[in-house]
């Protein structure tokens, strides 16, 4: 049974680059710090399994990945308490954290909370996306990093975004066969070039270009894919596609990887009551934050990709700034605060060029608002057509939609369908996604058992409102 203290100055949720940096800075400044993470080892998704990966050749995963090892090491030596295998299922405005460790739930109130729960893959609803054998590119990366597994047989990667090229590069380094990369038509290509000059001076430019060219030299790339479909009965057997000027083509496949960018994982932040707004550049909901990641709720901050997609180095910088803000509040004389300006400079450097990437890799509308027959809610099997038809019934938003169709009521709590549902309703109503809103999320944001819930402490008031017989 993991021993938790009665009191912490700071709790950090999520052990990716932002969380590791935040916890590290707080602990080194002498704050009682705890970091909760769901995985058994630190690194989040981008540095997944960096301290335990069975992948031996470091050229497979690349230098950027291995940079995470140093960050994990620094954190582990910082004096913060590290609690792996911990699922945080609730956070209140009063900074009470509900966490489940080894099947046992408990509540813990802390002075300051930094949420660094990162991002998840943008839903990519195409016909057949629920077939076995269809996975996200991120899933492929996890199988590689955590288990040293690479796809066997005919493999196609489809979609857009920098991570698409990264996983292809890593797969090629590992000796995996990639039959084709189907590059989806971009949503907003023209607008990207406005930001090209800034991008050219960003750290991502040369790196990204090199990576993409290396992949293009070795893999057939089909550009401007405007239609995409996974076909098969009990598993994916083929991927059908059409390019802007082409006719329908079909490739037999054993593995299909889909990717069209990542978006903030908003469930815990929204359940805590943190206000989010629609970001038109990144086509997702992002939290409303100040420059240090502070929210409108006193003592709760968000850092990393959960604050807005900006990549690992920016996440690390944001994590540090959120940590420094906590230090400033609780130890205003701490020497580490002198580093603040330098970190802000680093953040500026690593967010430069983001506008270009966002515009250049904007997912095309047909891959965000799919055709009628396509499943939008995987858990409850609700199609785009059903959603559109229910708008016609007077359903103006995702919460009434959820009540009427059950979309968003499954165990994933809208992580795979929420953005699609919001955008479909917005289009059907002719208004913006901000006006439509998002699912109203409540605890538990990750499942806990009824037994665990039953074992939590209850005060007199709580007991009196139940069992009045």
């Amino acid at each position: 049974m993991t021993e938790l203290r009665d009191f912490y100055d700071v709790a950090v949720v999520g052990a990716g680059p932002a969380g590791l940096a935040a916890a590290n800075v707080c602990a080194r400044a002498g704050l009682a710090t705890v970091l909760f993470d769901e995985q058994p080892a630190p690194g989040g998704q981008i540095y997944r399994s960096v301290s335990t990966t069975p992948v031996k050749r470091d050229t497979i995963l690349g230098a950027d990945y291995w940079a995470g090892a140093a960050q994990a090491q620094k954190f582990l030596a910082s004096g913060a308490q590290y609690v792996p295998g911990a699922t945080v299922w609730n956070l209140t405005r009063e900074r009470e954290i509900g966490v489940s460790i080894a099947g046992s739930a408990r509540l813990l109130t802390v002075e300051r909370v930094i949420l660094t729960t990162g991002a998840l893959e943008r839903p990519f609803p195409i016909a057949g996306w629920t077939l076995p054998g269809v996975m996200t590119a991120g899933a492929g990366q996890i199988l590689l990093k955590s288990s040293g597994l690479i796809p066997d047989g005919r493999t196609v990667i489809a979609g857009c975004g920098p991570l698409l090229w990264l996983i292809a590069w890593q797969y090629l380094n590992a000796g995996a066969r990639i039959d084709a990369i189907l590059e989806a038509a971009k949503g907003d290509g023209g607008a990207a070039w406005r930001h090209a000059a800034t991008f050219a001076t960003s750290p991502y430019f040369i790196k990204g270009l090199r990576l993409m060219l290396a992949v293009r030299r070795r893999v057939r790339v089909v550009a401007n894919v405007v239609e995409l479909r996974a076909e098969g009965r009990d598993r994916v057997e083929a991927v059908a596609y059409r390019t802007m000027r082409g006719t329908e083509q079909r490739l037999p496949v054993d593995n299909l990887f889909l990717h069209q960018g990542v978006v903030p994982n908003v469930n815990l932040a929204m359940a805590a009551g943190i206000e989010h707004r629609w970001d038109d550049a990144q086509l997702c909901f992002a939290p409303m934050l100040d420059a240090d990641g502070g929210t409108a709720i006193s003592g709760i901050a968000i850092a990393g990709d959960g604050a807005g997609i900006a990549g690992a180095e920016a996440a690390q910088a944001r994590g540090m700034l959120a940590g420094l803000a906590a230090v400033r509040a609780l130890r205003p004389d701490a020497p580490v605060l002198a580093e603040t300006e330098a970190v802000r400079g680093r953040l500026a450097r690593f967010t430069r060029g983001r506008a270009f990437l966002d515009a250049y890799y904007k997912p095309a509308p047909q891959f965000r608002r799919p055709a009628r027959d396509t499943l939008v809610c995987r858990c409850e099997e609700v199609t785009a057509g059903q959603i559109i038809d229910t708008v016609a019934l007077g359903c103006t938003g995702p919460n009434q939609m959820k009540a009427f169709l059950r979309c968003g009521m499954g165990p994933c709590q809208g992580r795979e369908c929420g953005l699609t549902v919001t955008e479909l309703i917005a289009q059907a109503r002719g208004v913006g996604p901000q006006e439509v809103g998002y699912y109203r999320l409540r605890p538990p944001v990750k499942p806990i058992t009824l037994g665990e819930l039953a074992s939590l402490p209850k005060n007199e008031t709580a007991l009196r409102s139940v069992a009045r017989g």
Partner: protein
Amino acid sequence: MTRVGHEPDVAVIGGGLVGAAIAWGLARNGARVVVLDEGDVAFRASRGNFALVWVQSKGLGMPEYAAWTKLSSDLWGQFARRLADETGLDVAFRRPGGLHLCLSEREVENRAAMLSRLHNQPAMVKYDYEMLDAAQIRARLPQVGPEVAGASYCPLDGHVNSLRLLRALHAGMQQLGATYLADHVVEKIEPRDGGFRLTTRNGEVRAGKVVLAAGNGNARLGPMVGLDVPVRPQRGQIIVTEKVAPFLDYPIVTIRQTDEGSVMIGDSVEEAGWDTTVGAGVVSAEAERAVRMIPHLARLNVVRTWAALRVMTPDGFPIYQQSVSSPGAFVATCHSGVTLAAVHALMVAPAIARGELPAEQYGAFSPRRFHVPATA
């Protein structure tokens, strides 16, 4: 600015289970109806209730309510069938009888005494119920835990898929020609030209009659048309588990398995104003009690919790009233919108269409009862 075609006969304020049932009933009667509703995020008891169609403990203090409830329960089957015929949606109404489980001898005694008082009221409608002892409840529900000391059972109790009910009523009423306007929160009602002018955030609507079915919003609207609607929010918190293969044949007043397979648990009452924040302590207490009742539940995963606001009158019984100062204005409000959906659709709506809530049926539910000094 919204324009509604010909001036509708009736404007129903509120698109929840009460408003939609009445609107459907009115539309079936041939009335031209417009329903004015809030937006996507609203205090909708209709989306947060426990979905019981429940008779067994209702009406202590007002036998007319017991009769009204039983009538609705008896009409529910045909109500569900008509909805299914019209909309193709099966709301999964089941009436296998329902249970109220007791976790101690004292609870059993209290329950038996209460039901006895209920059924001994003068003019109380007659129907069957049983008290089950420890052995009998185990025979009926083998999965109950060792602390379950007994139960009350009533064959008239049942449950329904209340979200699908709301959807069916929305679909049904619109199929019958009712106009539904979301994002039309009513700010003001004024009697005007023999009818009513309703000012909303998105335009003005005029109608011959107006029905207040806005739940807790009725308190604000009522005085505008000479109606007294002392309702207040009363919080209930609900837990939902993952879907499970069917195992619970009877709804228990605090635990039911839905037609989708998920298990709902709801057992709390709080006076918390308009706050719908879920409290870990309360849901934990509910979870603990549920696990004591059916121990197998402990291993199920909770996928969602929510808090919703009941629409509570001072004595817990409905208010139905027609305005004296503004004839043509009606109010219908209660905390049992699921149970009473049948009578709202099949009886209240036609009465409103005829322009009168007859005293012998509705008199007991008038809010005048709140001003009668209690007899010493």
